[in-house]
């Protein structure tokens, strides 16, 4: 029995990853990796600040 043919994926995530490394055109951050890290860092900062607020006014 032959293996079932895999349905073609119009665009694999790997291709998207390649684009993610291109320049953003911004003065800062210059790479998409930097933009994503900025967004995730801002999330972590807000969680930390909100946790501090919760603890500071019990």
């Amino acid at each position: 029995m032959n293996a079932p043919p895999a349905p073609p994926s119009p665009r694999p995530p790997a291709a998207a990853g390649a684009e993610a490394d291109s320049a953003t055109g911004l003065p800062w951050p210059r790479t998409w990796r930097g933009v994503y890290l900025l967004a995730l860092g801002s999330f972590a900062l807000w969680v930390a600040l909100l946790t501090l607020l919760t603890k500071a006014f019990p």
Partner: protein
Amino acid sequence: MNPLDYAVLLGTMLGIAAFGTWRTRRHRDLRRYLQGAGNTRWLTIGLSVMATQASAITFLSTPGQGYEDGLGFVQNYFGAPLALVFIAVVFLPIYRRLNVYTAYEYLGKRFDAKTRLFGAALFLLQRGLGAGITIYAPAIVLSTVMGWRLDVTIIASGLVVLVYTVVGGSDAVNLTQKYQIGVIFAGMLTAFLVLLGRLPHGMSLPDALTVAGTFHKLEAVDFSLNVQRRYTFWSGTLGGLFLALSYFGTDQSQVQRYLSGASLRESRLGLMFNAVCKIPMQFCILLLGALLFVFYQFETPPVVFNQAAWTAQAAGPAGAHLRELEAGFKAAHAEERMDLDRWLAARHAGDAPAAAAARAGALAAEQYADGIRADAQAALAKASGRTSTSDADYVFITFILDHLPHGVIGLLVAVFFAAALSSKSAELNALGSTTTVDFYRHVIRRDASDDHYVAASRWFTMLWGAVAIGFALSAHLAENLIQAVNILGSVFYGVVLGLFLVAFFCKRVGGTAVFWAALAAQLLVFGLYFSLSISYLWYNFIGCAACVVFSLILQAVLGNRGSAISDRGLASSDL
């Protein structure tokens, strides 16, 4: 409201709607009608994505939620930044490369026609119902504020948004949203500053935060593992991640917004703008509610904020009992106010024992007053024959009407309208587009001209507008408006997300397997929703996980047969 308020309200709302209609009135090309001119920059996209999500419910109910339950609801948005980054990396490049009109076109290309139609149908069902709720919220405000009939208010607000959305399509939505979000920011900032200015003389912001914290209004993050708690860090991050992935990644009302970007870069930056701004924005709205709570500790609040309902019943057979409860509440609140004054004075004087005693007294008095308030709400519900009265929805509008100056009142009512119209227009635009592209053009009439499809899209947009207005007119809403919208989304969203994740990452799964798996997963979510009492956010995760796992199992069972069927579907569903 006086003539100045009406001038501000009508000037901003009708002015923006008329401008949007006039600027976009000549669109005949289908791509431009559904996706805009293709020159939209990242800030416009970012504001458009934000305006689409932030409906009138956000600005009407969320301060009330902050007043009642504190900041905990902000955790609901913890998953959003993670989801937006994931969408920018994985979903967005695929949508843009395939140049699709709707997200469900991708399902047709990847799987088959029936899976595409199933995904589109789930969207139409849940977004069609959600659109009714979106239109209901500002109608409550206006019917309360102006004594208008609720049905007239719903129909009038529905017609305004229908006009420019039908005429101008996606361009009109983007253009009007930019100005509407400007009105929203200006109004909310003004309300915040006025509220700070109306706090008791001598009370600093740290004092206000201390009072809010004492009454548990600043408990923003809860790391509890108890799944029965509605808002925790874990449900917000994990459940919220799946909710946000589904909403931003697969809901056409959002996908259509960021696909209108001039390039992949503009669309991505628009999403990242929201990844950074979403949590602080929700925090500020909830903090406004927590500060409203502090304000009303020093200013006697009504025993029930829905004053229209209260006044109506107080004149009826239950009037004596309601007035007795009101008198008891006022006495308890006066006692609490005295304890709070003593506490703050002792605190400023550095008298720790006196401060502790007064604080304990204030807490006890507040608990007693809160009990009377709950009794009053129950008595009102019994007298009016309504099973649910969500008083939180009336907190912010009561403050606006009683304590803001004229002109600002009109601006704040315009905020609710602007938010309602901006999210409603995006929803109607998406509903019309999906019905046209995924059903009409794909199933009913495949080879018509652009003019024909633009006309069809306009008719479908009008049809969905009528459905939303009809649903709003007959809506029987539960608990709290914003929660009702989120709960509705969570019941359907998880499975839709599962379809897309299987499409992206499970390359061996074909159309037949994923279609039946999605159906089974949706039935499972319905079953669990009616039999469990867990936070609704978890249904996003459960629906998505069930769809993925069922797909893998079913594909293994079907083997060649499932894939062969899938391949035939792929061939026939290419556009």
